Structure formats: structure tokens, C-alpha cells
């Protein structure tokens, strides 16, 4: 029961987790950093110290285009998931009154997530294609005469699939935050003459911030690093940072991939650090 004893207990308890992080997170990331300075040829990576990977990466306009494109996806996806996620969470938290119904509706939202992400993604293809369900329905209804081409293999399709895949990750933390708002605060606002809208704006929104921040961190990091969605939904026509890395990996250009990875990592960390300023995750749980 002495202090040092209990400390030792803590170290014993944390060791497995710390070890896993050390071996499978820290060392690999360090490896990436190291390898990003290596050279490579068609089939090998060559230990070295060169800056060529970075100088090419940061020097070519492609990188900037790709980053711009990735930010575009991240920003659009973030905006839509936030808008939809917030609305859905608000509905579930404040307009569904019984806990049972909340659980049921929540489940309804969760079930699709048990189906493989990839299957869920490719299921859009027959839906949105030139001869897909949507176009046929629209043409059948006489709304359009030519199939809408922008529906598939386009930025629209990428953002749509991202929103489809990740909105729930926004709903959950926001819902969690909202459920922790003391109901009497809402009543106090009403008592002070706040309309439903003003209550939302001045009370619920600020108090949902932690959830919004957590959801945003999640969505943004996932989209920043995504490559499958972009590849499948843009028909390979668009690029994202993740896709670039994955292509480079595919072409065995590990050092180039590592350099891209380091830049991506720094970018994501910057974004997340900015978001974390808004919320103390450890306290908000």
C-alpha cells in the first residue's frame, strides 16, 4: 500500500499498451522518417541521406495540387458530415424523448457500419452510374433527358462516399456531448426568452463543441489519409495525398512514399493540434 508500490503497479499495468505503441507506432513512424531520407531505384531502397525526396515533393506543383485537392475533400466532407451529424445528433438527443427510441434509432444508424466499408463504397457505383438506379429513376420521371455524368467518377462521388462512410463518426461524439448537457440549461434558456433557434445557437452549439472537435478530428484525419474512396469513387481520376502514398508504395518507391508520409503527418498533426486547442479530450470524456 506504500506509494512506490502503487506506482510500480501503474507501470506494470501500462507497460503492455506502452510497448505496443512503441513497437507499432513510434518505431514505424521513426522508420518512415529515416527512410524518407533514403534513396531508391526500381526495386530497392538504398540507405543513404538525401533530400531529393523532399526537394522533389515540395518542389513540384503536383504536390500542391494534390494537397489542395485533399484539403478540398477534407473540407467538404467535414462540412457535410458536421452539418448532417449535428442535425441528426440534435434530433436524437433533444427530440427523441425515450431512451429506448434513442437506442433503436441509433442502432438503425449503426447497422450499415457492420458491412464492409469497401462493399458499402462500391455499392454507390451501380447506384450513381450512367445507367445506374438514380439516373434511370430521374430519366424515368422525366426530370432529365441525358444521364447526369457528374454523379459518378467525380469529386461529387468522392465526397458523397466519404460523407456516407463517416457521418456516423460525427454523430456519435456530438450526440455524446449533447446528452451531457444538463436539460435544465435548455429550460433556463427558454425561461430567459430564448427561442428554440437561439437556444441552439447560444447554448447547445457551444456546449457541443467538445463533441464537434472530436468528431472533426476523426473525420478530417480519416479523409486526409484516405486513398480507397478517392480511387474507387473518382474512377482513378483524382488524386489525394493518401492515394499518392499508396501509389508510391505500389511502385516500390518507399522513400518517396515515406517523404510524402512525413509531410502528411505534419499536416495532420498541425490541424489536430489546432482543433485540440478547443477541447481537452481527457477531461471531456
Amino acid at each position: 500500500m506504500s506509494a512506490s508500490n502503487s506506482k510500480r503497479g501503474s507501470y506494470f499495468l501500462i507497460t503492455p499498451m506502452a510497448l505496443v505503441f512503441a513497437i507499432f507506432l513510434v518505431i514505424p513512424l521513426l522508420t518512415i522518417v529515416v527512410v524518407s531520407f533514403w534513396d531508391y531505384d526500381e526495386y530497392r531502397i538504398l540507405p543513404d541521406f538525401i533530400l531529393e525526396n523532399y526537394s522533389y515533393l515540395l518542389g513540384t506543383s503536383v504536390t500542391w495540387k494534390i494537397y489542395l485537392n485533399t484539403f478540398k475533400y477534407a473540407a467538404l466532407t467535414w462540412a457535410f458530415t458536421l452539418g448532417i451529424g449535428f442535425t441528426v445528433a440534435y434530433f436524437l438527443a433533444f427530440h427523441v424523448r425515450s431512451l429506448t427510441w434513442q437506442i433503436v434509432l441509433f442502432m438503425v444508424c449503426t447497422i450499415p457500419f457492420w458491412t464492409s466499408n469497401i462493399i458499402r463504397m462500391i455499392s454507390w457505383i451501380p447506384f450513381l452510374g450512367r445507367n445506374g438506379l438514380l439516373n434511370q429513376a430521374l430519366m424515368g420521371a422525366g426530370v432529365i433527358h441525358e444521364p447526369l455524368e457528374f454523379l459518378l467518377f467525380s469529386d461529387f462521388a468522392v465526397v458523397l462516399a466519404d460523407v456516407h462512410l463517416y457521418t456516423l463518426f460525427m454523430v456519435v461524439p456530438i450526440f455524446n456531448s449533447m446528452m451531457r448537457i444538463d436539460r435544465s440549461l435548455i429550460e433556463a434558456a427558454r425561461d430567459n426568452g430564448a427561442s428554440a433557434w437561439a437556444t441552439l445557437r447560444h447554448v447547445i452549439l457551444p456546449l457541443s463543441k467538445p463533441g464537434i472537435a472530436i468528431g472533426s478530428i476523426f473525420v478530417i484525419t480519416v479523409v486526409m489519409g484516405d486513398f480507397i474512396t478517392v480511387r474507387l469513387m473518382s474512377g482513378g481520376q483524382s488524386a489525394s495525398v493518401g492515394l499518392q502514398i499508396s501509389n508510391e508504395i505500389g511502385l516500390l518507391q518507399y522513400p518517396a512514399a515515406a517523404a510524402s508520409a512525413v509531410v502528411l503527418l505534419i499536416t495532420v498533426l498541425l490541424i489536430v493540434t489546432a482543433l485540440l486547442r478547443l477541447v481537452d479530450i481527457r477531461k471531456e470524456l
Partner: protein
Amino acid sequence: MTGNGAIELIAVSKYYGSTIAVKSIDLKIPAGAYCCLIGPSGCGKTTTLRMIAGHEVISEGDLLIGQRNVTELPPVKRGTAMMFQNYALFPHMTCAENVAFGLRMQGVSPAERAERATEMLARVHMEKFADRKPDQLSGGQQQRIALARALITQPEVLLLDEPLSALDPFLRARMRDELRRLQQDLGITFVHVTHAQDEALALSDMVVVMEDGVIRQQGSPEEIFNRPRSRFIANFMGGQNIFKGRVTRADATATIIERGPDQFVLPVHGDAKTGEDLEFTIRTDLIGLAQEIPAGAEQCQIPVEITTVEYLGLWVRIVATTIDGKDITLMKTESEFRRAPVRRKEKFIAYWEPEHAHVLA
């Protein structure tokens, strides 16, 4: 600040699905009164208060505030303001912002808002804390901010749900004084829910005792404390010993009841009928202890043995047990007790004056 704060509940009921929280209650609270709702947990106090505030839909019946039927109006249109049990201060706003919130909702300009909020903060002696967030304040300070926030919209009626229950005894007494002073200054109606008897007695012009969604008794504090209408109220308000017996004589000169070997004489009571059971109470501080039956107390005495003597500072609480095992509580001031101390296991005659016996209706 005229008589707009009068409240009238007419056959108001509240159902939650199939459970009935409040059963068709009628209640008139005069403008400018301090009214306390009291009752055991779950009796419907909060529900009643929230129906007045407009935070709970009235299932049946009507609610009038200052002669207007406000049954269907939203909270802000009722001229009421509520102070919540946990204060419900917005944690993301400073005290000043909290207080100014109502004005902001009314679209008052920032400058005027700030000014009026500062004034109101000064009124509750919190101007120094204007820029703090609520979680940087103590319970008592939070409470004052909550008060200020409720008052800034100049309501006719202030509704308070257990405003003092989270405070320690000292702060409670101090806040009690402040509440009363404030109410006298503002002259508006206060409706205050509490489960503490002393609070209700100390503060109110009018006490309303509820049980099971129904009002059991309403009246001035003295009335409720000294003349409880039922065993429940006597028990609930405390300070009373309750006896039960069978009426052996009931006429215009006396009511006499019998309890085991003892006979008690009670004040004349119209409704008493011979052969019926009747309950009466005697205040704990109005029972004396003597070695012998005092003269004239033959029919209002009972032999007892002391079982507990509890020192409470100003009071000493004595529990004495009758031969048939009934506990009687006696309160003696410390001075009285010091003059005639008693100890555990000692035997006495407990006695009282016939006019101190109060028959339960």
C-alpha cells in the same frame, strides 16, 4: 409591480403516460406572497412548479397568472422566472453574460445589456465576479448569479426549486435571509419548493404541503406547524407527538378518550363521536416531566421511562417510552434541562396542559 403576480391553479393535473404526478389541484397564491411548496420526495412539488413556469405542459386544468390564463403560453410570456435547483448556469458564459442572457434574447443592445447586468450583479453583491465562469464560483455565489439571471427580466413571479438544498447550514441561513430581504424589496411573488421544514416555516407567508400529487394542507406556517390537519402532516412537519385513542365521551364540555389504562381529556371537538378512534398531537416542547402527577393533570399525563437523552446545543432532546412501548419525544431548552436534568432509565410522569392537545381532523 402591482398585483400581476397572483397565481391561480384551477383543477390542474399532470399525467406522465399512465402515472399521475399531480391530481387536480386548486391553489391561489396572492400577489407578492412568499409561498413554499413542501412534501416528501415524489409528491409532485417540482412538477407543480414546472407547470407554473411553463416547462411542463399542463395535462388538464387552467393556470392564471395575474388574472391572465397562461395555460398555453411559453415561459417567457408568463411573466415568471425560474431559478433551478442546480442553478443551471451556462458554463460557457461568464457571470455577466449569464445574467445578460435574457436581455440578449430580447435584443437589447450590448451597451445597455452590460449596464443592466452590472446593476443586477451589484444587487446580489457579485459585481466583482462579473468575468468569472460559473465553475470558478462557490455554491453560494453561483446561486446569487442564478438569482440575478432570473430577476433581470423583471418577472412578476419568481419560481425556486430547492434553491438552498446544495448549501451548507451556514450559507443556507444566510441565503435564507437574503431571499426574504429580496422578496420584501421587490414585492413580487415567490414560489419556493423545498423539502426542509425549517426553511418552509422560516421563509413563507404561506405553506402548501403536498403528498401523492395532492395538496394536503395550506396555510400560514404557524397554522401548519401547530395545527396539522393529519397524522401525515404532523409527522412531516415534525415537533409533535401523536397519540391515538377511542372517544369515551364527547359533548359540549369535554372530549375524553381512552388509550389502554389512560384517559385523556381533549379540547372540545365537534366532530368527535363516542366509540370512534381519534388522534391528537402534543408539541414536543409542551410536555413536562414530573415525579408525581401534577395537580389538575390527572387526565393529561402518562408514566414513562427515559430512553435517550440527546444534547443538541440549545436544546436537549429526550426520548421517553411508555409502559406499552410508545416513544414520546420531549424537547427541553438547555437551560430548562440544566435546571432539572434527567437521565436514561429514570422514570417520570409526562404531562401536558389539556389545551395544548390538538385533535387531528
